[in-house]
């Protein structure tokens, strides 16, 4: 009993560290007991899912709590801060991460060379650990460290496929994301110069007076931060790396990159905006307004670019640019309701987009089809897969009883609350644009005659289909009964805004 309590007290640290430990066990296991790799990786993710659940329960019981690494108090030690938002994000990360991992077992056998599969799980767990750290940390420099791990792991799970396209894409990604982290480091350095702290809340307190003394430094720091997180989470027009990277990566990597990685930067940004900067600063510097307009452009142009794509995964990648726009729209409108919408869309989009990338993976696995023009009639062979695609598309459009509808509802309500109905119209127009590129694919897949005779369909593995169907059920569940999630997020938003 005592031991359990001990574990519970150190849960935030154990969660992150266990993932890193398991990550480094992977290559050893791969040499020693090759068959154990997958079960151990699954076990690790299952454990972290259990731990995130425990954290969610803890947060619901005691509210926000902090954890000091090694017992060192800030400003000297690193602080992890578990609030509703981080607990929620951990649950999303590990819940969907586990499903993607299960899916990857079948998919990777086809997409990767045998000798790198062990390494793949190393990178995957490393990525998960870094993202968990980013959700938890309350320290600017520690955040930078996790961002670097995350960026490198993310690049590596693209380039691990070792074909020309992937290498090119991951190189592009590496450069841009290094630029992003560089910007962040500069910005942190400036803030440190002004305030003398790395601890977010302490920075905020110090900035209240410091901003008046060093207005230009703060201005530059904040703009660097927007650029950095904009690049990382593919905020328009800093999205240029995303389509190539997400489209060429192995499908499980695409699912995790599009579904989770770009979101974690949005969450980190929410933490920074609400914790590290005093509220008055936003009246001085129109950072939120800029985010708002960039997200609007992203929503519209992401969809327009997606419409003209011929490659299925590329279309999904462009659609991600539009969808991340919703998340930033929720942040930029700066009202609790809209923020709930944006944060809810993190979950909804993670569910939808991971599912859609898995669907793409299944189609490629089974038939090798990558181009949309060859989708005619494939639903006769891949019925459930295409049903999942259709429901996923409907959720993207925001049809009622799917999860996407609920996040749009919150965003729309938020836009009206701040009396800016224009953004409500943006949401509606983008829904329509989504319909323009998602539904024709379903229609072709279900109704068109199969034109090409030379395509053979391999049977789909159960381990690939089951995660897709679980996510499909989740989409409907979130559309019918979003209250468990929205209640938590409403508390999160309330706390952030107080």
């Amino acid at each position: 009993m005592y031991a359990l309590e001990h574990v519970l007290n150190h849960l935030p640290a154990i969660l992150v560290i266990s993932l890193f430990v398991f990550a480094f066990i992977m290559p050893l296991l791969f040499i020693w007991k090759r068959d154990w790799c997958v079960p151990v990786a699954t076990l690790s993710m299952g454990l972290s899912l259990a731990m995130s659940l425990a954290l969610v329960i803890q947060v619901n019981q005691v509210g926000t709590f902090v954890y000091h690494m090694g017992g060192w108090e800030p400003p000297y030690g690193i602080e992890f801060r578990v609030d509703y938002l981080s607990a929620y994000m951990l649950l999303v990360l590990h819940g969907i991460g586990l499903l993607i991992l299960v899916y990857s077992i079948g998919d990777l056998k086809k997409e990767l060379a045998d000798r790198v599969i062990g390494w793949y799980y190393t990178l995957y767990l490393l990525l998960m650990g870094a993202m968990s750290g980013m959700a938890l940390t309350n320290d600017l420099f520690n955040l930078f460290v996790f961002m670097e791990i995350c960026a490198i792991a993310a690049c590596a799970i693209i380039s691990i496929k070792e074909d020309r396209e992937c290498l090119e894409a991951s190189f592009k990604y590496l450069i841009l994301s290094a630029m992003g982290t560089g910007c962040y480091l500069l910005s942190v350095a400036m803030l440190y110069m002004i305030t003398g702290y790395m601890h977010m809340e302490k920075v905020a307190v110090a900035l209240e007076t410091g901003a008046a003394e060093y207005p230009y430094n703060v201005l530059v720091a904040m703009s660097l931060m927007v650029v950095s997180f904009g690049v990382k989470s593919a905020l328009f027009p800093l999205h240029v790396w995303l389509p190539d990277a997400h489209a060429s990566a192995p499908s499980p990597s695409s699912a995790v990159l599009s579904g989770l990685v770009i979101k974690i930067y949005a969450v980190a940004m929410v933490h920074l905006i609400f914790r590290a900067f005093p509220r008055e600063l936003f009246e001085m510097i129109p950072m939120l307004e800029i985010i708002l307009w960039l997200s609007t452009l992203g929503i519209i142009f992401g969809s327009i670019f997606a419409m003209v794509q011929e490659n299925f995964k590329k279309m999904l990648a462009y659609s991600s640019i539009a969808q991340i726009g919703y998340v930033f729209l929720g942040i930029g409108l700066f009202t609790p309701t809209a923020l709930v919408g944006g944060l809810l869309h993190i979950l909804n989009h993670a569910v939808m987009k991971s599912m859609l990338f898995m669907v793409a993976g299944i189609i490629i696995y089974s038939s090798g089809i990558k181009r949309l023009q060859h989708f005619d009639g494939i639903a006769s062979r891949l019925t459930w897969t295409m049903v999942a695609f259709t429901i996923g598309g409907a959720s993207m459009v925001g049809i009622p009883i799917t999860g996407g509808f609920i996040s749009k509802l919150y965003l729309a309500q938020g836009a009206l609350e701040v009396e800016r109905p224009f953004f409500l119209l943006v949401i509606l127009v983008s829904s329509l644009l989504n319909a323009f590129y998602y539904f024709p694919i379903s229609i072709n897949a279900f109704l068109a005659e199969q034109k090409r005779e030379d395509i053979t369909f391999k049977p789909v593995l159960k381990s690939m289909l089951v995660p897709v169907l679980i996510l499909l059920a989740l989409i409907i569940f979130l559309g019918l009964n979003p209250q468990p999630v929205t209640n938590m997020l409403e508390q999160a938003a309330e706390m952030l805004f107080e």
Partner: protein
Amino acid sequence: MSEDLIAVIIMFIVLFPIFMTAVIMYVGQKSEKLCTALSLATAMATFMAVLSLYSEATGGNVIEYPLFEVLPDLAISFRLDILSYSLALLSSFVWLLATIYSLDYMGGEHGKERYYPVLIFTLGSCQGIFLAGDFFTLFIFFELMSLIAYILVIHEETPEALKAGYKYLIVTIIGGLSIFLGVIIIFEVAGTVSLGQGPLFDEYSPLALLTFLAFLIGFGIKAGMFPLHVWLPDAHPVAPSPASALLSGIMLKTGAYGLLRMIFDVFGMELFQSLGWNHIMAGLAIITILLGSAVALTQNDFKRRLAYSSVGQMGYVVLGMTVFNEYALSGDIFHIFSHAIMKSTLFLAAGAVIWKTGKKKISDLQGVGRQMPITMGAFTLAAFAMIGIPPLNGFLSKWTLCLGFLEGGYTAYVIVLLVSSMLNAMYYLPIILPAFLGGNGATSHHEEDERTGQAEYPVFEVNEVPLRMVIPVAILAACTLLFGTLPTNVPFELSQYTSNFLLDGFF
């Protein structure tokens, strides 16, 4: 009946068909017979359940029942008042007949395992629209019904159907988004989306205007109102005939129902009238009437002409709801009944003709009336009702509407009605007269006789469609006559109750 029991029945009406959809879909893969039997049973059970509420609804009760909250203050809830009840009764009745008709009509068709679940699902969601207790629920069922009906539109899978279906899909989504806009605005402004709370807006504001436009576009698209009717003449004819009958007869009415709810529950008559928005709607309705009828004249495709006629007839319904007096409104509601019955008769009869002879062009229909006397007789009756010949139900609804217009001082509307009746006559008579009197378009069987010179004037053998197709058509045709003449005229009474209820809140 206790309120709990009523609530259970209401939920049964909406959720039972939706639940049965899954069952039918599952069974349909194994046994076709069981699939059709279950569909029929579901449609029958739904109709019976609606019927069982008759005395409750006409007793003036309003029953509200929240099912569960999706989000705080946004619940799935149901409500039974006389307007909901009238439309639920009408739709479940027509649905039952269309399902019976489908048994033989779809007998040799492909994709039955898809057709029946969709038919039953749209039944459930349509009842959901009519029995919804708030705009949120209404919107959800509206969107579900419209989107799922896409599968009915494209059932034939011809390139033509796919093209029409795509148009339908896009327009439906635009409509759905518009209604979403309206719902979210009233939620933000009024804090509630429930029906029957009295007017949710009490004065003009830009948001009120936006709400009006959003609902006008959203429901107007569904109701086929000018200039948003463009999808309708493409989508309705390509569907299988029972589905066309439902699309044109019932699903269009969901748009009209939404507009009625908008006028009476969102804005209230006084505000609506003082802002003059009823004149905007009336103007659009008049264009719709004249345009729909005029274009119907030029169509040579049998079902397409009927579809354009629907556009015109929905114009009457929209026009009727812009005049707020007892006659106009009861005429309006009664015309919803009449048009549903007439248009279903016409589409089902047309379907029977096409099913039997394969003739889709009006110019080929000579002599069909002698070959299929019951079907074409029913068609004729319904067409006469459309024109407004007494004593059919179409006459009664037009008569009541005209009385209302005159009482409200809108003489011009009466003239529009008369002109359009004349146009109706001009496009229906050229179908009917040659069908009975023309004689050159003999079937191949008779051409043989001609060749042997035994018949100078081709003799048409009576060659009707199967009984299960004739009976629904005959019942509907009988309704056009009965609901114009019966002394205790159930739909007309319901319409009068409804109009009193809308005007005064009780009856």
